[in-house]
Each structure stands twice: as structure tokens, then as C-alpha cells.
């Protein structure tokens, strides 16, 4: 389908596709197996200028937006959802600075991120605070011109590999939802350590670790916006990055679907390719239609975010919810179409199923997304 991309967007997307096909695809299975972080791929993406796609030109970026990020994330995810996360997770970790950082903070951090010299990571989740992000326990206590951070963040994407961390911590327990603040912490800060790499079902090439703060001194100049803005920064960050998760899910779904169609054409049973059986055709038709619908919703939402619309939470949640459910369904059906071969790790499709699952869980579980959507719909109805 023609999504009326600009010439520049077509160039970006085609370059991302070239990187995905020529550089990521050949090594995806290897990194899934070894669970190493794909630094060589990060370097190639850095050299292509694509890390800076959503960063303003004055900070060394290409001046694009969420839509451009989605186009690129989708292409990388088609080849490997895990490796793509090195890129997309950096976007998530950068949004707090982009949306709420001071000009000084942007000057300090954005150019290196735009060049791909430093990756970023977003730290909010804790062992006792997943969906219930409000009950985080990490504290930040003011001490002169520093804040002292104590606490442990869990399941942080890019942790250990990234150099720039945006961290949500409680500065005032008494203030409830106005009691958290957002900080930028750089790798190497004294009192900041990383846990072991988690062993995951999927996106195994993505590095997921605990981030442990023990009396970690962070300069007050690294406080984003004001004290008390933490949850607002976090929510706005997620609103902006959810279309990216949707794009990742669309890419994973498309990758699985491409494999399924090719396999169905070549696998012969009962004297005919299985693509000639209506049962398979109907599955493929449903898969194809759903991927296209997920893509259309993701792009529409991304464009809406880029247009500067004030209220984007509902649509953002919808795009993530729908695309991730589609990715799981399509990947599951792709394995089914491959039959026994779909279950074998020597064949590429079971990886897509393992990779798709996380998109229904992170950046807000799909149950939370539904809460957000319904909440907005009811509020809108009240206003009428």
C-alpha cells in the first residue's frame, strides 16, 4: 500500500531495508543463539546516520520524527526484533531528554546519540513496580548540587551497553503521583552497577539487565525539567515511543509472514504446493490483512504524534495494542504453516514467535493499554 511517504522517507526506509537485508538478516540467528550484543550492527547503523533520524538538526540529527523512526524500526525488526531493539530502545531512552530536557542537556547528550556513538536506555520498571509504575521505590535525595540515587531497576533494555540512562526515581514520597523526578545518569557513574544479562524467551540479542543504584551521586544539572515531573516525563515518553513498539511488532509480523508465504509456495504435499490449499490461503489472507491494518494504524498514530497533537495517549495505546496482538497471531500462524519445520530452531520462523511475545508485554502490557484506551474513551464521552 502507498503510505504517501516523502522522498526522504523513502530513501531512509530503503537504506534501513538494505541494512536489514544485507547486514542484519545474515547474522540474526547467530546473535539469537549467542545472545551477544550486536555492536557491529550498531556501528553500521551509526555510519548510516539513521540513529539521529528523530533528533533535531541543530543537535546533529536528521530532523525527522516518530514516523521516520517507525519506518526504520519496522525494517530492522523484519530481519531481527532483538537487534532492532538496540536502535529502538535508544529512542525510548532518549525521548525524556528530547521532550523535556533543557537546551544545555540536549547539547550535552543528543549529538553523540544522533551519531550512534552512545546508546540510551529508559529505566522505570522495578521488581515490585511493573504495570503499577506508581509504586516504584528507587529514591533520589537532594544533597547540595547532587541527588543521591538508591534502588534497583529491573529488565532494562540496553542496560550495560548504553551510556546514557534516563531514570525515574522518587524525590518526594508524600506527593504521590507528583513525587517522582526524571534524571540522566551516565554509565560509569560511581554507585551504578549492572546485574547479569537476563535469559529471555525471545529478543535474545537485546541486552536486558538490572540497573542497581547504591548511593549513586548524580549532578543536579542532570535533573530533567523540575522535581515532581517524573511521571509526566515517563507517560509522555511512552506515548511517543509506543508507535515504535507497534512498528517493531509490524516488522516482526511481516518477517514471519514473508517466510510463511515463501514456504507455502515451495512445500509440496499431496502432489501440490500447500499454497494451493484454501485452508492455507485463508490463513495467509487473514495474516496479510491484519499486518496491513496494524501498519496503517501505526503510521497514522506516528503522523499524529509528529503533527504536535496534544492528546495522543489513546491512539498511541491503540497502535501498540493492535500491532502486538497481530504480531503474536501472525507469528503463531506462520509456525503453523511451516508445520514441523516451524518448530525446529534450524528454521527461522519459531524465532519470530518468541520475539513477538514481548511486544504484548513491555512498554505497558496490553491490559494496561486497554485501561488507557477505555479511560480516554469514557472521558471523551463525558465531555460530549
Amino acid at each position, binding site marked *: 500500500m502507498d503510505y504517501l511517504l516523502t522522498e526522504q522517507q523513502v*530513501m531512509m526506509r530503503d*537504506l534501513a531495508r538494505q541494512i536489514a537485508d544485507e547486514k542484519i538478516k545474515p547474522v540474526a540467528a547467530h546473535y539469537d543463539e549467542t545472545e551477544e550484543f550486536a555492536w557491529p550492527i550498531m556501528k553500521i547503523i551509526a*555510519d548510516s*546516520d539513521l540513529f539521529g533520524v528523530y533528533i533535531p538538526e541543530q543537535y546533529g540529527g536528521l530532523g525527522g520524527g516518530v514516523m521516520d523512526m517507525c519506518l526504520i524500526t519496522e525494517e530492522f525488526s523484519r530481519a531481527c526484533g532483538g537487534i532492532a531493539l538496540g536502535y529502538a530502545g535508544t529512542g525510548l531512552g532518549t525521548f525524556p531528554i528530547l521532550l523535556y530536557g533543557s537546551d544545555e542537556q540536549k547539547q550535552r547528550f543528543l549529538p553523540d546519540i544522533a551519531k550512534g556513538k552512545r546508546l540510551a536506555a529508559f529505566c522505570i520498571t522495578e521488581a515490585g513496580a511493573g504495570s503499577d509504575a506508581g509504586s516504584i521505590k528507587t529514591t533520589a535525595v537532594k544533597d547540595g548540587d547532587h541527588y543521591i540515587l538508591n534502588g534497583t531497576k529491573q529488565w532494562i533494555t540496553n542496560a550495560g551497553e548504553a551510556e546514557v540512562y534516563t531514570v525515574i526515581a522518587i524525590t518526594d514520597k508524600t506527593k504521590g503521583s507528583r513525587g517522582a523526578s526524571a534524571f540522566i545518569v551516565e554509565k560509569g557513574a560511581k554507585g551504578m552497577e549492572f546485574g547479569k544479562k537476563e535469559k529471555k524467551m525471545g529478543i535474545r540479542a537485546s541486552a536486558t539487565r538490572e540497573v542497581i543504584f547504591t548511593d549513586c551521586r548524580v549532578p543536579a544539572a542532570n535533573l530533567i525539567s523540575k522535581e515532581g515531573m517524573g511521571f509526566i516525563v515517563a507517560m509522555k515518553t511512552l506515548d511517543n515511543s509506543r508507535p515504535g513498539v507497534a512498528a517493531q511488532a509490524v516488522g516482526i509480523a511481516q518477517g514471519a509472514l514473508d517466510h510463511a508465504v515463501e514456504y507455502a509456495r515451495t512445500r509440496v504435499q499431496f502432489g501440490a504446493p500447500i499454497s494451493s490449499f484454501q485452508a492455507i490461503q485463508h490463513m495467509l489472507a487473514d495474516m496479510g490483512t491484519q499486518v496491513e491494518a496494524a501498519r496503517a494504524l501505526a503510521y497514522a498514530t506516528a503522523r499524529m504524534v509528529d503533527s504536535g497533537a496534544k492528546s495522543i495517549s489513546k491512539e498511541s495505546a491503540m497502535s501498540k495494542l493492535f500491532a502486538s496482538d497481530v504480531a503474536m497471531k501472525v507469528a503463531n500462524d506462520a509456525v503453523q504453516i511451516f508445520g514441523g519445520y516451524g518448530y525446529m530452531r534450524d528454521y527461522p520462523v519459531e524465532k519470530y514467535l518468541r520475539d513477538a511475545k514481548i511486544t504484548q508485554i513491555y512498554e505497558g502490557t496490553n491490559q494496561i493499554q486497554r485501561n488507557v484506551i477505555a479511560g480516554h474513551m469514557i472521558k471523551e464521552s463525558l465531555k460530549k
Partner: protein
Amino acid sequence: MAIIPQQHMNIIVCIKQVPNTTDVRIDPATNTLIRDGVESVINPFDTYAIEEAARLKERCGGKVTAITMGPPQAENALKEAISLGCDEGILVSDRKFAGSDTWATSYTLAAAIRKIADFDVILCGKQASDGDTAQVGPGISAHLNIPQVTYVKKIVEISAGAAKVERMTEEGYDIVETPLPCLFTVVKEINTPRLPSFKGMMRAKYAKLLKWTADDIEADPAALGLDGSPTRVVKIFTPEARKGGEILSGATDDVSKELVELLKDLVI
């Protein structure tokens, strides 16, 4: 690799657009390739030359100029070269060049390079995937009367006025020292070409290419095109698949003895 202090190197890369397929059509009248309408790419060996030029610029500072002799569509090859790290592109194009063999082609490119005037290094791919002669690079250096090193697999050292390179041989490599300016033809082993960068692609999109005709390069008309080509392509054809032959079968020792006897009889 020796680290050389920043200096300005003028680097020229000669590239050629070739058909992106082995299924080419041949014009029966001139026995040359029909290039119109066939998808074209930069000659694969030239991509290694472009990459090496980009790396030399990163190493030493300077400017990379890509140059090609070809039909108007060869502009795309120049733009792609710019997206891969070249600073500017020159298209040398004129109907008078049609039908050039490698002698006329290298004469034409040498004339264009003489017009550029300032250069320290000329880089070429080892050979073109359509003609496979590997003659144009050496031809250019002959016309310009500058030294050449072919099959370069590594530029070990380079500074104003001199270079040390590894030249690939069948058994290994030679180390060759040469003054500059010099022409190098490069092999695949020299580097891994980068993908274009987005900023490179934008530069390429808005790049203003120089376009030179036969008059612009002050070429001698008698030295151009089909008339300036001392070689004639008599026939291009796909050879017939070989049939027949004698198959020797049996134990390896016996078969080897039999083969030696047969070869002795043929006095090879």
C-alpha cells in the same frame, strides 16, 4: 597501518556503469553491448576503489572526485559514488565516444584527468565485469605517463609524494614503493565497501555533477570512439557447451597412469 598527519590528498576514482546481469544483448552491427534499458550498477570492483578513496580521505584529508565515461545514465553511478563518500562527480559523455575500446577509453579518461590537473592518486577497480579486460586503468597511467601498481590489496603508507602498497600475486604479495602521483587498480581483498549513509544520499541527491564533452577535454577526435580504437570486436558470442570428451574410469593409480600416457602422446 601508518598514521599520517593531516594533509590534502586529491584523489580521483574512475568508475564504470555496467549492466546488472549476465544476460546482455549485443548489437549485431557494432558487436558492442546494448546498454539502454538494462538496469545498471557500479562495476563491482569499482566499489572497492570508491571505498578505498573514501578511506584515504578519512586517513589523510582531501577530496575525492569520481569520474566516469559513459552515456547520460551514468550520472546515477556518479551520484551513488557521492553517497558512498566521494565529494564530486564528473561525467565525460559525448556521442563521439561511442564504440571506444580500452585504448580510446583510457585516452579519453586521461584527457579528462589532465583537465582536472591536480591529483595525487588515481584509483580504479581491477577490471570491469562486462569487458573483463583490466586494461583501462593501466591505459590511463600510460597516457598520463605516471606510474601504476595493479592488484593493490593494501595501501600501507601514503604521504605527499610517495606511497607503499601491497600488490597481490598468485603466491602472496609484493611490497611496492612508488612516487606520487600514481595510479592503483584494486582487488576485492583491499576492503569491505560501506553502505551509503543517509547524509551521503542527500548530498548525492542535490549534487551538481560536472559534464564534459569531447571538446571540453580537448580530445583529439581521431583518438576517440570506434575510429580511435585499434582493436575491433569481431564477434561476441556465448560459446557452445562442450560435449563429448573421454572419461577414464577405474582405480586412481591405473587411471593416473593412463592419463599420463595419453598426455605424453599429445605432447602437451
